[in-house]
């Protein structure tokens, strides 16, 4: 089925999530939709699949304008969507889940349904027992079930929203084979992702969204650099950045070792100069969190030395590090960073070095008001922190950092934030760098790592790469390293 989107607009509050998007996809195409988090991909797909209504614009299927009121309506038109988190009903039998959503008859005919199911599954090489329970399935198998269900319901346009998240490599291969098979049958596939390698390996063509706009398209052979440039609006990691020329060394790690009950990190050596940003990449729980906390004194290292501006702080507590200009911002904002029940003003007072015995509340309120303006926090000095939104909480945390700082340790500084907040927060962090603060940050967002780091450490099951120049990395190589591939190739030559 040919799909055409004409001038789609969708506005959420202040955010223009889709700003006049035009896209035409012929039948039998695997169309990639690429863009970073918050670019408007999911919004556009939800418009097409009837989960939300566009504020403006029209949808044409096979040249006929249609109005899609709901997901059930979409499937009647032949449009089905697989979500990032498969939306099924775990305690059910697979076959019941499969039947669900089918129109007609009070008593569904299980026998024919099972026959259809098995036939379809065989066609795609999926091995699922229809009588088993849904919660016995892996994420990848749930996805397969969902594909079968949509096809059985008559979908001719299938939308996949980040389908390669959380599935194994084998399942990914199976998924890609199934997608190609469907395209060969004349189905239209929309493949939404922010993963370059997936899109490059699969799609017949790619449309790139950035901040709600369709900024470009591409066909194979893809040039990764230009895709990345379109996604982020500028080339990332292309120009060699060298902030360290002649700059002072802020942090020096000598053969640092640290371990917890799961992981052992051995002999990491690193020198970070003033103003430098080090990205720590890896799958969650690969050791980067442990490493970051040991560098701030929150976890005692088991070997090696930590020097901050030449001062040996090995084995000292976080409070000693703090005294010497270190700040740590945890990912769990309300669990670890902010105290629910206290106001912004109270946080500002707490974060400052106490002067005198009594709190000068009037001064503190004024100081807080200044911070609120400087950090664009939507709230008042008297707002309790738990009343702020996630982005505002993160900005509030940032606003609490003392001045000046030598070293800033960040866990997922922009996780869960919209694009506006992300950009804002990094602009504030870069200001700090310009004033000489060094940053170590953890992120599971490859683009964030590549875009903002000078050098990158990749963690895999407690192993750590030597510092890699971000300018020499692509999301491809980084993604492989994170997944544990390509490690032996890292010669000592890349050590800096």
């Amino acid at each position, binding site marked *: 089925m040919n799909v055409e989107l004409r001038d789609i607009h969708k506005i959420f509050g202040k955010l223009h999530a889709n700003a006049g998007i035009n896209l035409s996809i012929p039948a039998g195409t695997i169309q990639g939709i690429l863009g970073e988090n918050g670019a408007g991909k999911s919004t556009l797909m939800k418009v097409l699949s009837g989960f939300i209504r566009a504020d403006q614009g029209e949808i044409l299927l096979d040249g006929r304008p249609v109005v899609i009121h709901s997901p059930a309506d979409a499937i009647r038109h032949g449009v089905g969507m697989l979500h990032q988190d498969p939306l099924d009903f775990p305690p059910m039998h697979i076959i019941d889940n499969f039947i669900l959503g089918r129109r007609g008859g009070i008593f569904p005919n299980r026998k024919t349904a099972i026959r259809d199911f098995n036939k379809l599954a065989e066609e795609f090489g999926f091995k699922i027992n229809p009588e088993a329970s849904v919660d016995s399935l892996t994420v990848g198998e749930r996805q397969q079930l969902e594909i079968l269900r949509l096809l059985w319901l008559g979908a001719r346009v299938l939308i996949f929203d980040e389908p390669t998240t959380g599935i194994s490599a084998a399942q990914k291969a199976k998924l890609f084979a199934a997608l190609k098979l469907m395209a060969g049958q004349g189905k239209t596939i929309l493949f939404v992702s922010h993963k370059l390698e997936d899109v490059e390996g699969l799609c017949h063509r790619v449309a790139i969204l950035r901040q709600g706009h369709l900024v470009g398209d591409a066909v194979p052979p893809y040039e990764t650099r230009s895709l990345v440039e379109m996604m982020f609006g500028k080339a990332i990691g292309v120009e060699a950045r060298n902030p360290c020329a002649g700059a002072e060394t802020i942090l020096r790690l000598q053969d640092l070792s640290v371990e917890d009950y799961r992981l052992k990190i051995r002999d990491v050596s690193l020198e970070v100069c003033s103003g430098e940003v080090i990205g720590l990449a890896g799958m969650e729980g690969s050791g980067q969190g442990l490493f970051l906390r040991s560098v701030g004194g929150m976890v005692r290292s088991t070997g090696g030395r930590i020097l901050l501006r030449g001062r040996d702080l090995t084995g000292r507590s*976080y*409070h000693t590090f*703090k005294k010497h200009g270190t700040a*740590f911002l*945890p990912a769990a904002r309300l*669990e*670890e*960073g*902010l*105290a*629910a*029940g*206290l106001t912004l003003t*109270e*946080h500002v*007072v*707490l*974060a400052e*070095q*106490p002067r*005198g*015995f*009594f*709190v000068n*509340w009037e001064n503190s309120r004024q100081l807080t008001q200044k911070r609120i303006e400087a950090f664009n926090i939507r709230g008042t000095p*008297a707002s309790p922190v738990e009343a702020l939104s996630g982005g505002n909480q993160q900005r509030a945390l940032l606003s*609490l950092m003392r001045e000046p700082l030598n070293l800033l340790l960040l866990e997922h500084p922009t996780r869960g934030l919209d694009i506006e907040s992300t950009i804002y927060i990094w602009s504030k962090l870069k200001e700090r760098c310009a004033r000489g603060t060094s940053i170590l940050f953890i992120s599971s967002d490859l683009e964030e790592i590549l875009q903002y780091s000078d050098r990158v450490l990749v963690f895999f099951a407690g192993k750590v790469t030597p510092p890699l120049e971000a300018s020499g990395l692509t999301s491809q190589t980084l993604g492989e390293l994170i997944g544990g591939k390509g490690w032996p190739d890292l010669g000592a030559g890349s050590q800096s």
Partner: protein
Amino acid sequence: MKSKTWINLAYQSGALVLALLITALILAAVGIPPLAAFGSILKGALGSTASLQYLLMAWFPLLLTTAGVLITFSAGLWNIGVEGQITLGAIFTTWMLRLLQDSSLPAGLIIFLGILAGILGGALWAGLAGALKTFGGVNEIFGGLGLNFVSTALTIYLVFGPWKRPGVASMSGTLPFERSLWLPTFEGTNLSPWSLGVAILAMVLVYFLLRGTHFGLRLKAVGRNMKAAYLMGVPTWQYSMLAFLLCGAFVGLAGALQVTAVYHCLLPNISGGYGFLGLLVAMLVNYQALWAAPIALFFALLNTGSIQLQIVYGLASSFSGVFQSLLVLLVLLGEGVRQRLLKKS
């Protein structure tokens, strides 16, 4: 902000009315006319100079214990061991007075040292609960409860053992001290201006400590979120310990004053339940020091007034506890309901 205060007030008055209603129902159920009963409580507490004096004598220890537990509550600690801390204050004071009573030191100094010892005793006992929590991982509720039993046993042992009256030991306690070791009282009463003054001063002190100082704010941060407080640079376990020690000092002072100003001896159950009652007051005022003094006065009024209930109707004077507990329960319940409604809307 303004409207929030009013809504709060509305919920709290609602809880008060409901508590009165339920109490009235209970009274009616046992055949006592509720209104008359309430009237006799008021009369019992405020009806004469003597009853006013008793009211204030119930007020000052309650003020001190409330002041103390406000500090531990601020730090997020449930100092259930407060009864034991009062008791240890009383024991230490008695101990010091016994040591010095035959010495040549001036009486005033002996009293002063005795009270100081009481403060120390309370702080030590609270410090023990704090140390158990901080270094031993024993929840302060269980630690405090255990230490309460130990303190009761210790008192009984002392009253019936080493410190027993010449002749026959009795539940009425150790031999009273000489008059010179009593805190001076208002002419013709048993009420000491010293204890009253000290208690009011303590409450004012705690009010400013919690509201206006870095120390108070940091305590509050520890109470709200230990991890965040640590990351903001607050030495957390040290502040928890300090909260215990300070609370212990205030309630130990209460115990010391019970010995020097009220009973003039050590007797079993010298804490008189003021510790637990202080916890109730603190919960009722939602840990805000400003309201603690009037609410404590109200509770003291119920306690002294209900003695009249016993005289007139033969109802156990502990009946005041029924009303007090109901009130706290209903206020907490009202808060829960309000939170739920807030979430829904």
